[in-house]
């Protein structure tokens, strides 16, 4: 178990500033997830930690020791690549034992460790196969096994599940979570999939164009996104944004009897999650807003309703599985302003945190 600290880290590729001053503290045994859209610098940050890219400026500390200039081979980190990067000429067992063989560990101990890891990952019957003869999920397991066998100080994962099909991805996600509970190792996991981030992480690090946008527990970033970027990125279906208008100001005034504890009226944009929108079939509520249904997606368990409000701004709402709503119809809805966030012109959140005691596992 190890802690990792990153200080003022910058990375320039010849003409592109990929990492723009990242500061980060990762505690012992923590499962940290870097999440962000494609191209935001997640892999680059992970590769800088791994020692596969040269740091432009700043420093990386592993257990309070500066490893900024240490070679990848000497950092004692293990990485699972998106492409798995298995050694094609070696069997599963040889793949998993490669690092130990290089480190000249006693062959008996190697055999034991490989057997243990194979047991955990259900690879025992596949140990003699070559990577070519394995399915995607099995390859993934071998790549993880290769990391486990070494008992590294930190595990690094770069989008390890993105090449798997949807159902296998869910299964592997759960297995990874179980693995972390079992090994209690420090793990850093990169993904563009916010569901993986929400389900796996102790700590989520949201990256945007080479900057850290927010750090927090999954629920904290969900309930209290620091910016419009985070709010939009975390949560499915996405948060909807509606421009402030006089109508809405009136509704807010109604709701809070003229007060504005959530600083909504001074915001330019309101961020509304689907669960804060209530659809009503009758024209009766005083908090009513009117829109036109532009699209209905029936997912089985629930129905997603996309509403055009003021002509263009789409609001997403949830409805019952069998709700009788058709595209093209006018619809009445209300918004629960207790859980709405206000954002200013720069996309920063103005409204205070949603009540803290609701949120488990605060950082």
């Amino acid at each position, binding site marked *: 178990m190890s802690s990792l600290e990153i200080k003022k880290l910058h990375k320039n590729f010849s003409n592109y500033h990929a990492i723009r001053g990242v500061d980060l503290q990762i505690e012992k045994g923590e499962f940290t997830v870097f999440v962000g859209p494609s191209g935001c610098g997640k892999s680059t940050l992970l590769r800088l930690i*791994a*020692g*596969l890219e040269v740091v432009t400026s700043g420093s990386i500390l592993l257990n309070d020791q500066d490893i900024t200039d240490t*070679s*990848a*081979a*000497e*950092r004692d*980190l*293990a*990485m699972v*690549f998106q*492409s798995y*990067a*298995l*050694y*094609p*000429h*070696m069997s599963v067992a040889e793949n998993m034992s*490669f*690092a130990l063989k*290089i*480190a000249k560990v006693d062959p008996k101990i190697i055999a034991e460790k490989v057997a243990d890891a194979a047991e955990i990952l259900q690879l025992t019957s596949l140990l003699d196969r070559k990577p070519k003869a394995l399915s995607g999920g099995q390859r993934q397991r071998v790549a993880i096994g*290769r990391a486990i066998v*070494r008992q590294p100080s930190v595990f690094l994962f770069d989008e390890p599940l993105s090449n798997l099909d949807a159902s296998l991805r869910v299964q592997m996600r759960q297995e990874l979570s179980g693995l972390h509970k079992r090994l209690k190792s420090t793990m850093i996991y990169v993904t563009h999939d916010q569901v993986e981030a929400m389900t796996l992480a102790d700590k989520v690090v949201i990256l945007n164009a080479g900057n850290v946008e927010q750090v927090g527990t999954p629920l904290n970033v969900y309930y209290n996104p620091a910016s419009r970027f985070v709010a939009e990125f975390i949560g499915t279906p996405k948060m909807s944004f509606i421009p402030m208008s006089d109508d809405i100001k009136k509704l807010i005034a109604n709701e809070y009897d003229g007060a504005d504890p959530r600083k909504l009226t001074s915001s330019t944009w309101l961020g509304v999650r689907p669960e804060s929108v209530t659809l009503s079939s009758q024209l009766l509520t005083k908090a009513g807003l009117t829109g036109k249904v532009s699209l209905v997606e029936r997912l089985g368990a629930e129905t997603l309703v996309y509403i055009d409000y003021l002509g263009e701004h789409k609001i997403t709402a949830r409805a019952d599985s069998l709700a009788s709503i058709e595209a093209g119809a006018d619809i009445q809805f209300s918004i629960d302003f207790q859980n709405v966030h206000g954002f200013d012109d720069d996309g920063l959140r103005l409204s205070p945190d949603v009540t803290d005691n609701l949120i488990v596992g605060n950082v």
Partner: protein
Amino acid sequence: MNSRIAKLLQAPSIILLFLWMIVPLGMTLYFSVVRYNLLSPGPLEFDGFSNYAFFITDSAFLPALINTLILVGSILIITVVMGLALALLINRPFFGRGIVRVMMISPFFIMPTVNALIWKNMLMNPVYGIFSVIAIAFGAEPIDWLSEMPLLSIIIMVSWQWTPFALLIFITSLQSQDTEQQEAAQLDGASSWAIFKYLTLPHLARPIAVVIMIQTIFHLSIFAEIFVTTGGGPGYDSTNLAFLIFSQALLQFDVGVASAGGVIAIILANIVAFFLIRAVGKNLMVQS
């Protein structure tokens, strides 16, 4: 129905290729068992295996056989090792790599005779060759390469010409090697040498096998370099089977004996290929 049409349409080219191969082979086999000397015209009489006996018992046969094997073996080792080393050297991007690559590959495009003349006259000549000039500059005795070490001279010339071939094949293969595998190995603590040994070499197994096969076929019949430079001498010191056959056929005008030599060369090539394929297959292919 379809496959019959396909077979029919393929037939002309297959028949042509078959004739292309079988006619010369048949004629060689035929000439090898008749008495056929251009200096004593007359009907071609069946002569049993006496041509073979004559060729094999010739005092030049054994040296030629040994020279052939030495040539093939040493040129293979030199070109594969040098090709591999150079390919690794220019695999990483650096300024001017394109030019360097073209320059390194260019010897392969020079005709063997021209290559031999360059080495003979410009480099290895004991009086005005560059090697002797250098030797004299350092106060050493210039070496008369072609008469003092004829076989080594041939090996150097042919290796110089064929290293680019190995280089070309290896560099293409190196370019297709997965970089993430190497990074994974780095993180696994592997040194550059370990990465070369456990990842790069197995990755190059097939290309190495291909280079060895193709070169063997060509080097069993090295001729132009010998013809242009040493003429097989001094004595039989640089005579290989191909050159011996040539000297039988065209210097002594004995087509029958030369044909017998040709058949022996074919048999030798097959034996060498058989063992090479097995050796290469065992050591390299197993891993892939």
